[in-house]
């Protein structure tokens, strides 16, 4: 970070902010996966965990939507694409608002980690086709379903025409990922500024609001020298709860009320980076590698 080329965002923004509601469906009876059990609390079905998440699609999404609309947020919805099939109302609400749809797999209970190379290849075809069929959008990026991946994932994503991957938590700026084709870049997402880990623990809404504000203030200050990315990861079943929704209002008032913020989608961030900074970042990475190789 200390020695990198400088990133400049449109209109000299200091922070590129993307807002990512995770619109998900967890299956009532998911297929058995030897590596990962989505519902360990009891034998399946686990109606409590299922219902908690189902609340998001019945109630929480709609309460959050009102607040996002009031703030004119163009979201990048991290979407289990089967949402378009199970819940056309939600699909339409997202498409009507011209939200960018980022693939979050098909279901949150079907993991990439157990797929063969061929199965994973077919998975991308399914994702691309499903999104195009329901919205006309070209799929540009992915957050792995329930953040699952394989070692082949970046190459196969790139082969399927995707340009960004959100599973890399390693930076505050987009970073080129080495793939066969490309370009493929990481757009920083967050498992810290994310309502799931925060509210899985003891934190309350106030804590989350303070975290988000502090994160923003630091990135905004640092962004004076080189642009930063901030992701706000949300889940309707958590943030759409009646006792949390005011926190979202406070967060959006704060972030969008500041100067020098570019409220963008993940692909806008990715494309701007690819068009303006990709080459110099690759060159820089090669210089750094050469230093390592020489030592």
């Amino acid at each position: 970070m200390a020695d990198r080329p400088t990133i400049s965002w449109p209109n000299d923004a200091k922070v590129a902010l993307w807002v990512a509601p995770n619109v998900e469906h967890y299956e009532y009876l998911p297929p058995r996966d030897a590596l990962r059990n989505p519902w360990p609390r009891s034998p399946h079905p686990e109606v409590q965990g299922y219902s908690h998440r189902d609340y998001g699609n019945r109630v929480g999404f709609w309460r959050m939507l009102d607040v996002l609309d009031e703030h004119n947020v163009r979201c990048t919805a991290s979407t289990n694409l089967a949402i378009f099939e199970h819940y056309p109302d939600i699909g339409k609400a997202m498409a009507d608002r011209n939200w960018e749809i980022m693939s979050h797999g098909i279901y949150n209970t079907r993991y990439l980690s157990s797929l063969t190379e061929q199965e994973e290849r077919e998975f991308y075809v399914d994702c691309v086709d499903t999104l195009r069929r329901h919205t006309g959008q070209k799929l540009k990026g992915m957050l792995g379903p329930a953040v699952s991946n394989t070692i082949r994932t970046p190459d196969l994503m790139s082969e399927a025409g995707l340009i960004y991957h959100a599973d890399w938590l390693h930076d505050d700026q987009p970073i080129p990922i080495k793939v066969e084709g490309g370009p493929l870049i990481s757009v920083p997402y967050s498992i810290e500024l994310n309502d799931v880990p925060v509210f899985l623990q003891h934190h309350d809404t106030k804590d989350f609001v303070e975290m988000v504000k502090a994160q923003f203030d630091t990135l905004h200050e640092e962004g004076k020298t080189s642009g930063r990315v901030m992701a706000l990861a949300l889940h309707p079943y958590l943030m759409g709860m009646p006792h949390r929704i005011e926190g979202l209002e406070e967060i959006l008032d704060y972030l969008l009320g500041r100067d020098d913020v570019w409220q963008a989608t993940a692909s806008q961030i990715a494309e701007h980076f690819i068009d303006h900074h990709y080459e110099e970042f690759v060159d820089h990475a090669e210089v750094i590698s050469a230093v390592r190789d020489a030592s």
Partner: protein
Amino acid sequence: MLKLSARCAMPAERSSGMDHSHYSYSPLPTRAPLVWPENKPLALGALVLLEHYEWEPPTDAYSLRNASGGLIKLPAPDYVQLTHREYGHRVGVFRLLDTLEHHGIPATVAVDKVTAIHYPWLVDHLMQRGCELVGHGVAASQIITSKLSKEAEVEIIGNSLDTLEKVTGARPSGWFSPEGVESQRTPELLAAAGVSYVCDWPNDEQPYKMTTPLGDLISLPLFLEVDDEFALWHRRASLASWESMIVAAASRLHLDGQTSARHMMLTLRPWLTGQPFRIRSLDRSLSQIMQLEGIWAAQGNAIVQAFRESQFG
């Protein structure tokens, strides 16, 4: 004979609606406005759980692997966990009922079969205080899961309801499965057993109709996030946080309930919230909630009856 495999596709079929047949998808804003008696915006209920963990459960019974209470998971018999839970039946429940009564909130109490048999004095006491009793299985250490045969599940449900009917003279109209765990068949078996409403599905702010092939059943969702065990035990939220969460949730539901009424079912465990240091937080939060105008404090059955009237006339 009902063919369950045909009804519950596995894995999910990618078509419109839910991936099971227990209810339809219903986004809240698309529903006709729900109206409570006297146009009150928010129904407030409290489900108190009298759940018994057996010292020597049947060897083939299934328990939650992370059952709450106690200190660390000890080899059986876990005196710490078992007696921690028993505190609720001996002490906590009275403190909890007093607090609810003080705020004018009539309690709905889930009573499992072992509790009904081993604590007859307590059951009489609940009846004298006007509590509504709902079925709660046989014991918390015998949860209902899809590993049970249909016959075994029918027997648990029937046994639990029959026992409560025998000791109270009235058959319960409501049901909450032990630890909130169900099999794929539970909703229809409850409907077949004559149960009117079930609290196992915490997915909404309004009751809704379930679609079982064996009879009519209403889902009365609990509010999982303010459930004392979920918030205080599993999430380890502070008491101050829990208290403000309850108040914030009720205030917002009260506001949103002006356009379409809502309900809020608190889930309270006597062994947990009935502890002397915790009861004060509940007391303070209820004081604040009950100051909101037009709170309808009610038992489960009354809320469900009002829902039926609002929907079906």
